[in-house]
């Protein structure tokens, strides 16, 4: 009997969570440029949104790594008198 009550409670709270999750997933859909630009279908499945989100986050991190790489290369090769050096110096000195 108690387990019956428990399962009923679980399903009602999961109903509330389902609404929240649907709303959050639609927010995610708006944040992912991949999906926002594909206006063809109005309904993008939740799992696709989640998949695209994972990919998007991975790509952002990869781009940050790549940018750090380029910046560190620049510091290596830059001519201290060039305007590029001035930009970096202002970045570091400010």
């Amino acid at each position, binding site marked *: 009997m108690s387990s019956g009550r428990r399962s009923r409670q679980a399903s009602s709270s999961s109903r509330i969570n389902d609404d929240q*999750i649907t709303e959050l997933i639609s927010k*995610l859909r708006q944040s*992912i440029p991949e999906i926002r630009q594909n206006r063809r279908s109005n309904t993008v499945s939740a799992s696709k949104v989640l998949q695209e989100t*994972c990919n998007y986050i991975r790509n*952002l991190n990869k781009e940050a790594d790549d*940018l750090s790489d380029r910046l560190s290369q620049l510091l*290596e090769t830059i001519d201290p008198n060039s305007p*590029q050096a001035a930009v970096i110096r202002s970045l570091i000195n400010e």
Partner: protein
Amino acid sequence: MKEEFLKKWQMGLQIYRPLIDNTSVSERRKAIKLSADVAMASLRKGTTCWSRALIQKTATEDNFLVRQMLSGIKAETLINKKLPKVMCHRKIVRRSKKILRRRQSRSAIEEVAAKARKLVKKKTQGLRNVVPGGEFMSNDVLLIQETLDYIVSLQTQVNVMRSIVDAAEAGSERTAYYLGKLKFAIEDG
């Protein structure tokens, strides 16, 4: 938010300034990335799970940097604060789900719905692997809220870094143009 990020990132890079001339490219790259991550996470002032997890993770790689960058924002508590242990005990959940399933009769529609739910579960697990601290977020609602915030912060980090690097790589004639654009982009927020 872009301006705040840039200021914090600059602060982190300044800590490395004496070393910049004498370290290898890969060490420099790591320093740049780490200070960018701490800058991004510190903007949240410990209010989100992902930012706390990211700070702790960075602290294990470079404790000195994190302490310096966070001095004044309760550095000690952020680094040492235990992340909430809300991990589900998978065996127990699996067992109780099995019992529930045996009691329910399955129509075709229920089968499809169950498959869809399973797929979503798999994808949210993927999300947990990508968001810092995700493994501690057993609540799906929390997970997605944190993801949204993390994405916004990551976008800021990448946009600012991209502007700086583009400006720095530009030729002398275009540097002035890029500097103006950079200033505008950052103030645009």
